[in-house]
């Protein structure tokens, strides 16, 4: 087992390096530069003379390999440099936005699973039944609602018309801090949470449904029924447990996504998360911030896939013995 983990870790390193090089190249070879993007569409134009001076200021006049070497040598010391846009340390900017995105996306994932798993198990327990058909239709309808449109519609209804929920933001201007403000903050979470959840329901519910439908006729489920377990017990204790494996694999791939906020939802609900930071940084060609966020995403993806692999190996001896690729 130790050997298996060590070999996977060793493999992850060149992958990480590959990702970093690729992102760095893509970024610098793409058209536009921090200078042309300065201030965005409401910014003012520089004459090319002034632009060249700025290029020098940001070190963009140096050859690409030199810039890469410089960046990498700083990154290994965990120094991500400063943002080109506001000249603050990159980590400070990420640190500001990360908790908001983790909170919103984490809760959305929990909520999704809480709804999607029972839905999937019940649908899969009797495929093509009335429940399955209705759930399928509902899920696909939700899946095809564009987030932008749905979010504005929910805002118009619940905030503008009914005044039940706040329009946007993390907390009211006057809300108290600490536990007393909890209700207010939860109210602010409601709409973005709903918007993030409804679209991903379909994915998880259909995944669970497919796995459960697959195993419901398996010998051990039939044996369980024969032992006198109710349909419900057989479904949840035996069919669902085995159907859980593909879900875990998928979660390993989905979890890193917690770090990449949804740009659209964050913009509409004025949620100060990583999605907006990433998006604005790309528009502004804020190389240090883009590189740091890409690196963060890459490391998280590699670590969590690795964790999923290890969990899999622990669960299935065939994997760690190399019998199954």
């Amino acid at each position, binding site marked *: 087992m130790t050997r298996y983990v060590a070999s996977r870790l060793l493999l992850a390193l060149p992958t990480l390096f590959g990702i970093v090089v690729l992102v760095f190249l893509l970024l610098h070879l*793409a*058209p*536009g*530069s921090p200078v*042309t*993007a*300065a*201030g*965005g*569409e*409401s*910014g*003012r*134009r*520089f*004459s*090319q*003379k*002034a*632009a*060249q*001076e*700025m290029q020098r*200021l940001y070190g963009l006049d140096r050859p690409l390999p030199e810039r890469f070497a410089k960046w990498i040598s700083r990154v290994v010391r965990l120094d991500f440099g400063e943002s080109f*846009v*506001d*000249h*603050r340390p990159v980590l400070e*900017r990420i640190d*500001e*936005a990360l908790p908001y995105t983790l909170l919103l996306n984490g809760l959305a994932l929990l909520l999704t699973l809480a709804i999607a798993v029972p839905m999937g198990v019940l649908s899969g327990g009797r495929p093509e039944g009335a429940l399955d058909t209705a759930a399928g239709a509902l899920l696909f309808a939700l899946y095809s609602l564009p987030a932008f449109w749905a979010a*504005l519609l929910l*805002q*118009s209804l619940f*905030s*503008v018309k009914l*005044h039940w929920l*706040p*329009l*946007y*933001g*993390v907390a*009211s*201007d*006057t809300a108290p801090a600490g536990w007393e403000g909890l209700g*207010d903050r939860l*109210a602010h979470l409601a709409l973005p949470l709903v918007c993030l959840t409804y679209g991903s329901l379909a994915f998880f519910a259909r995944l669970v449904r497919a796995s459960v439908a697959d195993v419901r006729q398996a010998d051990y489920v039939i044996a369980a029924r024969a032992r006198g377990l109710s349909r419900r017990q057989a479904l949840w204790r035996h069919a669902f447990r085995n159907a859980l494996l593909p879900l875990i694999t998928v979660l390993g791939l989905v979890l890193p996504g917690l770090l990449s906020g949804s740009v659209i939802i964050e*913009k*509409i*609900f*004025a*949620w*100060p*998360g990583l999605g*907006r*930071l990433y998006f*604005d940084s790309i*528009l*502004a*060609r804020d190389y240090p911030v883009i590189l740091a966020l890409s690196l963060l995403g890459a490391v998280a993806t590699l670590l969590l896939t690795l964790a999923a692999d290890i969990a899999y190996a622990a669960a299935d001896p065939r994997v760690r013995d190399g019998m199954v690729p």
Partner: protein
Amino acid sequence: MNRRLLGLTIAVCLALACREREPAPRVSLSPPPPTAAPTPLPELGYIDESQMGTPVDGGTLRRRLSGEPATLNAVLQSTLPEQQVLQYVSRNLLDFDSRGQLVAGLAESFETSPDGREYRFTLRPEAVWEDGSPVTAADAVFTIHRIHDPKIPSPVFKQLFEDLVSVEATGPRRFVARFREPYAYRAMSFVFPLLPERRYAGKNFLKAAENRQPFSDGPYRIVSWKAQESIELERNSRYWAARGHFDRVLFRILPEEPVAYNAMMSRDLDETQIDTEGKERFQSSGPAGSCCRLVEYYNLDYNYISLNNRSPFFSDARVRRALTMLLDRGKIVRSIFRGSARVISGPWAPDSPAYDPTVAPLPFDPAQAAALLEAAGWRDTNGNGTRDRGGKEFEFDLLVSAGTTTGREIDEMLSTELARVGVTARVRPLEWASFIERIDAGDFEAASLAWSASDANPDPYPFWHSSQWPPQGLNNEFYKNPEADRLMEEARREADEKKRVAIYHRLHTIFRDDAPAIFVTNSSQKYLISRRVRGLVTSFLGWQGIWPGPIGWWASDGAPPAPAR
């Protein structure tokens, strides 16, 4: 898609430049006297509520920012949100009033040398920073040096001081700035804010903490800045002139306009800019719309399609004229702007004094345009449906920033008309940074752009004179006409405003006939404002470009309505 330029403008400089030739004239700048309501513009009402009602103090004004400021260092500012916040905390040396006249800011007066190269400023004795220390000449010298420093990106002000020879303090409240050449609009260069030298001493200018917590010499100071959420201001208790009416000003950072619209409807916001679609939505909103009023006015911005005058397609003025005549600008006004726009015939908006209203725009006339293309040698010799000349097909890319729907719609209309006369224009939306990189590099044939003038200077020299071709300047069209060059130079030296305007009017005709670009429309600026907000004054310089602008606003209730949440 703005090409934000250091504009210039309008009716300024009456009292100032006209006297430049007399020995040591002295110009006193006092706050403007209360004015009678000016004549309303024909199309849209010009609002001046500054003398209406008795202002009530108190409450919070909630405004919208469309993006997060990158800095609140007044020298480094470059975007509209930055300008909107800084207007409350950083006073300018001089200011524009709502009609584009220069008025006193931190400076109480200035005088110019007889040769027009030297400007001597005197600061107001009462002007102080938020800790009570005086605003000094040393601060002014420090700020001008920072603007002039090649290592400091100061896109808004850099160009104003490119011609600077020296600047020095001649007393605690006096300084003198010398320039290489006299320039008719020089005084407008001094519409810029000052930074406190002491606070920046020994610090890295680009990274100083003051860039996020600016030291105020204006009516408000920053209380909090929550990244991507909001910026809150409170009154600066040490402010040295008439204080603002609101106790607090809250800027909400709301990137999405439809969301800002919803916020207006639920009375969570007092002001936002809207587009044509938002205006129509508001006008059909019924009772929900009782929250706000629609305020609409023209400023100096305009749309145009930049043509690369060096390209084989557009080096001939007849071809450029033909393209202008193929764009149905009347239809653009009706269908894209729903009537709230004006067709323009030169590189100024109609409210600019440089604009000659007698220079009629070229008509929409496809037949005459086709004849012009024939005359320029563009004929379909190989019968493939596209005109060609010397073996080259008349096919080009029409670039547009992907973020703008207006520019895209204008381009599509032009492309459709061009196809009818045998010219192929492919509309190519590009993401902003890539788009502007190609414009800056001169690597384009035609591109849809918006001009955004932010002050009252109408001088076309930096953008249309042949000495200002890239990489030196911002004449991205590579336009060159010796007669136009000569007139532009002459106007810069002409101290008499009437004569200068006459020169610009002659230039206007040349610009129309040369058509270095397709000048399209000047469209209205539209805002939703809470009904409780009073004291609005609109101006062609926009709210950010004038003093006191939004600082003169007040709330009829003096306190915000009960929060909707």
